[in-house]
């Protein structure tokens, strides 16, 4: 009797480990799409640019690489990125958070070791171009090129003007003549993602409307059609993303007029307003700028050196404190003023209408990042117990440059792409685990 019970007991215990519960998940399906060779087309966001630079860890956490990883179970093939070698892992260099000041302002420093920078070449009529260690692999799936605009995709000489593109091409700097659009379509592919167009508005915005131009709406529409026609030439399916409202990113929302003014007033309560050199109308053609008091609708860029405020500068009216008088306004390149904001928004909306209508005409999935990032800014987002927002550093989504994303941010973006793909093509690419990807690194 005793042995019988012992036997029963052992039987029961061994049985325990055999009967793990499991949840039935739907059978993997690629739906009507073919993910066997996926290529990603786009700019810095597609390349995995983060913290003001392109470096290995950012590349390894790029949203296309996350999408490709998730595609593996539904027929996705290998996905090769132009990774920097380990010895040059810091790529172009990037910003690192080194601490906080007593008042809670972050302190950042540039990483300058183990770079992939190979030199600087003077390109006649353009200027100096920094070059990087070439990518020598034969396979390439991630064609993200930091800095590229839609405007550049048919430009044959572009390889000479952008070091990040140059490193993907064979041949010497200064001799390139392969347009980006020809480069990305040279090898066959079955599926693509296209997130081009951000820089056509962002370049203008991040320079405070001073250092760059908005791409003409008509030109944008023509080029976008051209790109999409080429990408779908053999019936390939794909996904495109809309362009974020540039004012939804922390680059424009962290250093605010109110915060600067409050800082000034702490030392000098008599100060009533900051003065900026602002655009006089909201047209692209307008070139008139005039000083006026800043309001909450004027956006100061993240990189504005706030120490300049109040320092005496030479003006026609004599030595005056910087930013505090109409004669010594904050310079144009530090401010995206209300008219420039309105202008940029208008262009972004027009670009996005183009993107959506071209995608619709070709039955291509659309990931509406414009709406997604506006919602993130307005409401925040909670994923798997993590509170995310578009706040600088603490928000978890945006990296230290205030424009590009953290690995966690890129994983959230990858999931938005995956959802759009699954909806359009009836596939069930599994979502990425956002909790597996980090936010900003704190020292």
């Amino acid at each position, binding site marked *: 009797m005793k042995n019988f019970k012992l036997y029963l007991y052992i039987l029961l215990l061994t049985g325990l480990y055999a009967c793990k519960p499991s949840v039935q998940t739907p059978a993997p399906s690629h739906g009507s799409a073919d993910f066997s060779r996926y290529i990603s087309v786009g700019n810095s966001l597609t390349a995995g640019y983060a913290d003001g630079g392109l470096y290995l860890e950012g590349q390894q956490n790029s949203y296309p690489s996350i999408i490709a990883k998730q595609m593996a179970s539904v027929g996705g093939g290998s996905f090769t990125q132009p990774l920097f070698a380990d010895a040059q892992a810091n790529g172009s260099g990037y910003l690192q958070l080194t601490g906080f000041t007593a008042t809670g302002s972050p302190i950042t420093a540039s990483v300058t070791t183990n770079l992939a920078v190979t030199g600087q070449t003077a390109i006649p009529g353009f200027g100096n171009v920094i070059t990087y260690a070439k990518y020598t692999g034969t396979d390439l799936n991630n064609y993200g090129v930091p800095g590229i605009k839609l405007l550049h995709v048919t430009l044959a000489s572009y390889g000479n003007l952008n070091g990040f593109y140059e490193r993907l091409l064979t041949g010497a700097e200064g001799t390139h003549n392969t347009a980006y659009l020809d480069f990305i379509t040279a090898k066959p592919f079955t599926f693509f993602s296209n997130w081009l167009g951000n820089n056509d508005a962002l370049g203008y915005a991040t320079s405070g409307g001073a250092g760059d131009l908005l791409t003409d709406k008509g030109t944008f529409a023509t080029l976008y059609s051209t790109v999409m026609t080429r990408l779908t030439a053999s019936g390939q399916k794909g996904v495109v993303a809309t362009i974020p409202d540039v004012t939804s990113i922390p680059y424009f929302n962290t250093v605010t007029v109110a915060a600067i003014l409050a800082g000034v007033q702490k030392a000098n309560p008599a100060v009533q307003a900051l003065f900026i050199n602002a655009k006089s109308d909201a047209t692209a053609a307008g070139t008139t700028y005039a000083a006026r008091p800043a309001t909450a609708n004027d956006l100061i860029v993240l990189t504005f050196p706030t120490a300049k405020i109040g320092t005496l500068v030479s003006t026609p009216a004599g030595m005056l404190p910087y930013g505090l008088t109409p004669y010594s306004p904050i310079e144009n390149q530090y401010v995206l003023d209300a008219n420039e904001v309105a202008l940029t928004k208008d262009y972004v909306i027009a670009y996005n209408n183009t993107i959506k209508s071209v995608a619709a005409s070709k039955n291509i999935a659309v990931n509406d990042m414009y709406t997604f990032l506006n919602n993130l800014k307005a409401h925040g987002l909670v994923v798997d117990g993590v509170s995310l927002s578009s706040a600088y550093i603490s928000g978890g989504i945006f990296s230290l440059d205030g424009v590009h994303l953290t690995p966690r941010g890129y994983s959230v973006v990858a999931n938005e792409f995956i959802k759009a793909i699954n909806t359009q093509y009836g596939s069930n690419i599994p*979502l990425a685990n956002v909790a597996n990807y980090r936010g900003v690194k704190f020292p």
Partner: protein
Amino acid sequence: MRKILLFLLALLPALSFAQGFQVNLEGQKQIGMGHTGTGLLQDGASVFFNPGAMAMLPQNYIQGGISPLIFKSVFNPSGSNDQFYTKNKIATPFSFYAVWGPKSNWWKFGVGVYTPFGGLTDWGNQWQGKYALESLNLKAIYIQPTLSIKLADFVSIGGGFVYNIGSVDLTRAIPVSDANGNDGQARLKGTGHGYGWNAGVFFKTESGITVGIDYRSKVNTTIKNGNAIFGVAPSLAANFPQPNTFTASIPLPSTTSLGFGFYPSKRWTLAADVNYVHWSVYKVLAFDYAQNTATLQDTYSPRNYKDAVSLRGGAQYAASDKLFLRAGGGYATTAVLDGYVTPEAPDANRYYFTGGLGYKLASRLDLDVSFEYEKLLSRTQTNIESQLSGTFKTHVYIPGVSLAYHW
């Protein structure tokens, strides 16, 4: 001027009790019969099941039992093929009872030490819900001195005072990375105590059916000055002051039970129990930290539990004078509303089956073994606080053994 004044993180120490934390393992004979016993006279476990029945027990008892419990949960995040499992950890609910009274007298005194609530869940630090919970070890040990009085040959009453020693040890990841990309860690560890009571009445009806009614009161357990240990990157240390303590109060709910015993033949005992667990007392979970910062605020999380019911039935067959075979089962409703399911004890409606064997090793010594298998129905949920979205499914395996000496 690039001010980061607030680090608002989702740091909500969500500790939630649920039906899953009610441990229904208070005696091997009873477990074998589907954990019925409110209306039966089995042994010293009446201290727990129904103090009113104690005075009717024909003998005195000293007994102890243990029910190693393996809680196996799986989580499948929405839209994913991943399956995350809890680690194989064995919790050890136990029960000890002593009941004594002068032979054939009108009273009996008893004491019970048992574990009516507890949980041991370890999801590890790599799973999708790590920011909601990594691991939880929760114990409540009730100590209950009890007196029972026979009012007449057909009715007895009894009641006891309950002292609870509770402990909690919870870990979760904090979503801020250090320089190496590792998460921060939070650990809340503390002990507390609370008071309550347990009273019941027991009838022997003329038809031979026995009936028991029992009420175990709510036990408010307060954990005072528990350790709140945070490990984060040094530049954030000021946001999570150390050392720090927390205070939290958790009501362990009251349970009302009604039980019947039927005796169709000499060899057969049938039992049925209905339990009503007043989980609705659990409205909020509040955590009060001794030191607050902009990041580390006191938290106040709604729980809004609803009362739960469990139905149980069981049978015992005396195969011989020495050998008893038992079987039973039951069904319990969840206390947790949709949207409030958390990984601590991913609660759902559940059913369970039990079986047991009793063997008289000697005329005064009983050996009882039991086995229980519980299956929680799979539940697909998005938690309103953490937005953790997916399907939980849980199996629980509980072997058990006890020895009872009676005279």
